[in-house]
């Protein structure tokens, strides 16, 4: 039965470590479906984390902290949208610039807010919610049905995003913008409004990833705590074929690799731990090589739309 316990542990870790990647990947999917790259996910995770930590620190309420984090994400999304849509800045450059800006800004602000503790201040967070009956299922119960509320929020948002994007009329318009903005424009779609909406939602979702790190995992803000999750999320978008459900599944796969490498570290202390740390990245590379070749991105992603362009 030792193996089952181990499996349960890894599954619980998968959900915990995969959730922030999944939030960010969802955000990326919505942005790219509207024709905009969001390379700024990494920085926006930090913005969300700082917002959540500061909100919770000031009020003692994790829920208010969550709200503050989401607002920070929305604003950073709007800023990225302004650069990409209005100024038509190269979207890769704009995203990287945003990452650098937010990495510096959050480090600076965290010292201002938390003072001498420099982010070491412990804040209120969420506790795990055990779902009655389901959480009593062996192996799966403790790992998937006694998680923190943000994990359940993720599942809810993923389903909602899938329905909105693939089934609703606004979603059809949004996808049309990402495929062929001129065609959408000529059909009467408010191209720029939809793109602003998508990039803002994208920022808010990335911020939820940061909020999860602070409010459900470590209860403190730390500089650079996003630790590459925003970039792994970019890979999850491709692996998930630009589908909200697919991206979440891909993110959870990366979470699984991460959880597994932790377990391996403990079970094989004689192997240098750096080798195990590589594991999630190797897995993502292999997965991209195998599955990514067939993927097809929205046809106009990354190309700024200019109505009067000749």
């Amino acid at each position: 039965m030792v193996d089952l316990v181990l499996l349960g542990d890894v599954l619980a870790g998968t959900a915990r470590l995969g959730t922030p990647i999944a939030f960010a990947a969802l955000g990326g999917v919505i942005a790219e479906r509207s024709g905009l790259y969001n390379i700024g996910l990494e920085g926006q995770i930090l913005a969300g984390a700082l917002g959540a930590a500061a909100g919770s620190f000031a009020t003692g309420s994790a829920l208010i902290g969550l709200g503050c984090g989401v607002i920070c994400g929305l604003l950073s999304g709007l800023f990225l949208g302004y650069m990409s849509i209005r100024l038509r800045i190269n979207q890769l450059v704009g995203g990287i610039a945003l990452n650098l800006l937010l990495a510096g800004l959050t480090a600076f602000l965290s010292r201002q807010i938390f003072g001498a503790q420099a982010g070491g201040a412990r804040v209120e967070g969420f506790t795990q919610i055990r779902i009655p009956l389901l959480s009593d299922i062996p192996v799966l119960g403790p790992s998937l049905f006694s998680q923190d509320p943000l994990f359940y929020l993720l599942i809810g948002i993923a389903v909602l995003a899938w329905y909105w994007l693939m089934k609703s009329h606004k979603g059809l318009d949004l996808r049309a913008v990402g495929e062929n903005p001129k065609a959408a424009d000529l059909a009467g779609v408010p191209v720029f409004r939809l793109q602003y909406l998508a990039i803002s939602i994208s920022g808010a979702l990335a911020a939820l990833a940061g909020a999860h790190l602070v409010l459900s995992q470590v209860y403190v803000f730390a500089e650079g705590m996003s630790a590459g999750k925003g970039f792994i999320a970019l890979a999850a978008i491709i692996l998930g074929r630009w589908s909200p459900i697919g991206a979440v599944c891909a993110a959870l796969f990366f979470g699984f690799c991460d959880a597994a490498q932790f377990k391996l570290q403990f079970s094989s202390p004689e192997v240098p731990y750096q080798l195990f740390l590589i594991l999630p990245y190797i897995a993502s590379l292999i997965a991209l090589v195998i599955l990514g070749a067939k993927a097809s991105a929205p046809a106009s992603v990354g190309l700024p739309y200019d109505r009067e362009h000749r």
Partner: protein
Amino acid sequence: MEEFLKVTGVGKAFGSVRALNDVNLLASKGECIAILGENGAGKTTLASVLIGLYQPDSGQILLDGVQISVTSPAAAIEYGIGMIHQHFSLVGAMTAEDNILIGLPREKRGPAARARIRQLCDDFDFTVDFNVPVANMAVGMKQRVEILKALFRDVSILILDEPTSVLAPTEVAPFLQGVRKLVATGCLVFFISHKLDEIREIADRVMIMRHGRVEGILPVASTPMAQMSALMMGQVDADQPAEKPNTNEMRLDTTRAAKALVVSDVSLTTSSGAEILKEVDLTLHAGEILGVAGIDGNGQTELSEVITGLKRQTSGTILLGGKEISGSSIAARIAEGIGFVPEDRHAEGLVLSLSVEENFAFRSIGERKFMSGGMISRRAIGKIAEDAVKAYDIRPSNPKLNASALSGGNQQKIVLAREVARARNLLVVVQPTKGLDVGATQFVQDQIRAVAQSGVGVLYISTELDHVLEISDRVAVMAFGRITGVVNPQNTTLQNIGLLMTASPEEVI
């Protein structure tokens, strides 16, 4: 005449280019107005202003006597103005139904919408496959989806931008039938075209544009075609058709001239085993124009690519002026004096985001005439570009403009001017008149004749048979990757060429 649409004094400039200049127009419901003009005359620009893609610099648009401002395509839809673009604006990855419904308010998208789309299909006798993504459709069907999209939005003004240029000959008649029905329901249709016979068939009046101005709006029935084309070309005397010398008689006998190009036994097989070219043999003399005719996709494009080095043949040899170039690099072939006007001038012939003068120079950077002290000499480039702009009458005549700012015909002139200059031994042209109007076509043909006169061998590959027959000394016909026959255009029949073009692979062997 009941006044429905009124356009007064509309002007639009792109940088220093005046694309529209004081355009005035009066039109009523249930009318079909053809818009005729050369490439770059401002036809499409006017249409883009009407549907809110471009904002005019001056002028007014009135609908039913009320001034409207079409600030966006969405606003145009509100006013009932729709347009079918030459290169459709459809989302390839989506189905016909999704494409039609994009952008509509929620209440128009219910289950009733599906029924209405099918009803429209019935009303206009349209066949549309609703189960496949638009990208997998034939052009004719794509166009029907575009029209359905406009009909579904209840347009009262529909602009068709060269709608028949993409259609197969058999698709044209049913399409015109559909347009006629639309006009009968009271729609105002603008029909942009440079095909006079179609205008004759479909339009009530014809509006002729030239250099961004309206030259005249005339009833089609009582206006002779010669007058239309004269207004379009800017000829003052309508009775005098453009003089066309019978150049073939002036041509030299080139059969004794040196061989400019010898292609012997060239085959090209793809990695998947498809035989694109099969044992092609061709001889081209210096000063000769050898036409290559055939239905699109029978290996003509690949033949041009094998000769210019873009593709490597699987077997066979190519001799240029007696020197073997079968294995030479593209750069080496250019150095041997091959000029190449590729089929797709946007993708292969030009860099649209570079200026006209840079487009002239970029294939020759490193040659001494463009360099000074190890650096690119802007002055030398500017000088050469300016001369070419003058010699080829490229408009607008500013070589500092981006190539993208020019119309298709003028872009083709840039490519031609550049390649003619480097073609010392051989000029390979593919579809040089594609999408060009009568005037530009004539100009391009004349330039190619002049090149041949100067002793360069010209390989003229085109699917436009009458152009090939008009210009060539001899015509090689291709079918299924083979040369099925070489004929003299003076003493052959269209029937004979048609048979060679459709010769099945078995017959060829």
